[in-house]
């Protein structure tokens, strides 16, 4: 795999993992917006 491949793999995995963690952490924190 070349550098570009690693770049897209890490970026995609990072974005999706980050989004998933963000969503579920927020759900379990149970804070409503004003």
């Amino acid at each position, binding site marked *: *795999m*070349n550098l570009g*491949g690693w770049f*897209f793999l890490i970026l995609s995995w990072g974005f999706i*993992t980050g989004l*998933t963690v963000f969503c579920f952490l*927020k759900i379990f924190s149970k804070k*409503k*917006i004003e």
Partner: protein
Amino acid sequence: MNKEIKKRDSWGSRIGIIMAVAGSAVGLGNFLRFPVQAAQNGGGAFMIPYFVSLLLLGIPLMWIEWTLGRFGGGFGHGTAPGIFHSVWQKNRFIKYFGVIGIFGPLVIFIYYTYIESWTLAYSFFALTGKLQTITDQSGMQAFLRGFQGLEKNQFFCNLKWAYLFFTVTFLLNIFVVYYGIKGGIERLSKIAMPILFICGIILMIRVLTLGTPDLSKPGWNLLNGLGFLWNPDFSALKSSKVWLAAAGQIFFTLSVGIGVILTYASYLSKGDDVVLSGLSAVSTNEFAEVILGGSIIIPAAFVFFGPGQITEIAKSGSFNLGFVTMPLIFGSMSLSFIFAMAWFMLLFLAGITSSVSLAQPAVAFLEDEFNIGRKRAVIIFGVVCFILCQPAIFFLGRGVMDELDFWGGTFCLVLFGTIEAILFAWVFGMENAWAEIHHGADMKIPRIYKFIIKYITPLFLLIILISWFLQDGISVILMKNVPKENIPFVLATRLGLMLLFLILAILVRYAWKRRKGKRG
């Protein structure tokens, strides 16, 4: 809100509906379609149009459907005809556009349940060791064709096994829907989704630790396999086909434009959040698709079949990859039956959590618009669908399934998504829509999405609808690629679908007349 609205079913927990919507979205396509699309459309570079489509099309449509569903549920409607009518009460025709939201999932259910049953059957064949006795591509293809009843061979001489597993799968679906939203669908999703992810993670770890299994072929290694999927080819981005493929993948993977999310969200209460829940369902689906789906079939196929054959294998289609290539790969590993079982169980769980969601709109329609009790509605649905499934089983090789997939699984999705987006942003009005989305929300949507939902998403959908129609639609409608001997079957399917749509439209008309009569 109308106080006469009868008490409807509801979700037991927030995680329950998120798992149910994610379960509806995570289907066979996450593991079979996505990696092939990515590998054939620019590799890593495919992720650029993919994420652009996710942000401009997928996430907005997810929010639109959750919001419209919750809004319609407040008026006692769980399906698109009633939900659309609640949004645009002055228009007496809008409810007929909503028929697509019952017709589409019903048509997909008819053939999807049959495909789902193959995964259950293959899990059984893996467990009993029958699959592991076949060691080459032609043998595995013959096994699949024999099982599907496309030929008589040493493995199968009739459709007995396929029909048996179809019946079991069908009854399992009916059983789940029979027990309702909380007792059936939510309970299934809460059990099936964690198991699905465990199976996926086990398979991903196994594939990512393959290294170089055959030292005499050092190039056939995992890193090169990942490279085949992820190495970017930026020239692909100049092609409109690649952008269309990415947008299509986002559309199909998130289960938007079908009508099932509308129905699921209609069981929420007015104060329930839709913003964070919708986003969580998207992220769960993307995790299954990009991280798990992208790490299993293509890298594994590359390691076992090498760079020479991988392009050919990727082009051979999703079914070939799932039911021919993967069993062969697992067959050559130690503890093969465990990995083959995990693979087909993963597909089965992905399938059943999607198929129960496809059944729900038609059942909800009977319950909400005709006041039929759930159990009776499920039995009516079950009997009608069992009959409708038969052509897809017995005329599989005659193009019936492709025809059902084109109308129910492609055309209706894009059309329905476009209608929803326009209705939400332009008829409901962006100010109302924005307030409705944020009612009870656990997070605020960035303001840029006000512009995106109003202008970009509908425009994007119209572009997809027109380009896709010009690129593929015309040739399918004119049956350009249908063999002559299959034309009568394709035409009969088309006629049957028209009849089904007409019957649903008449039922909608009758339901509204009945309601009007009761009020009068």
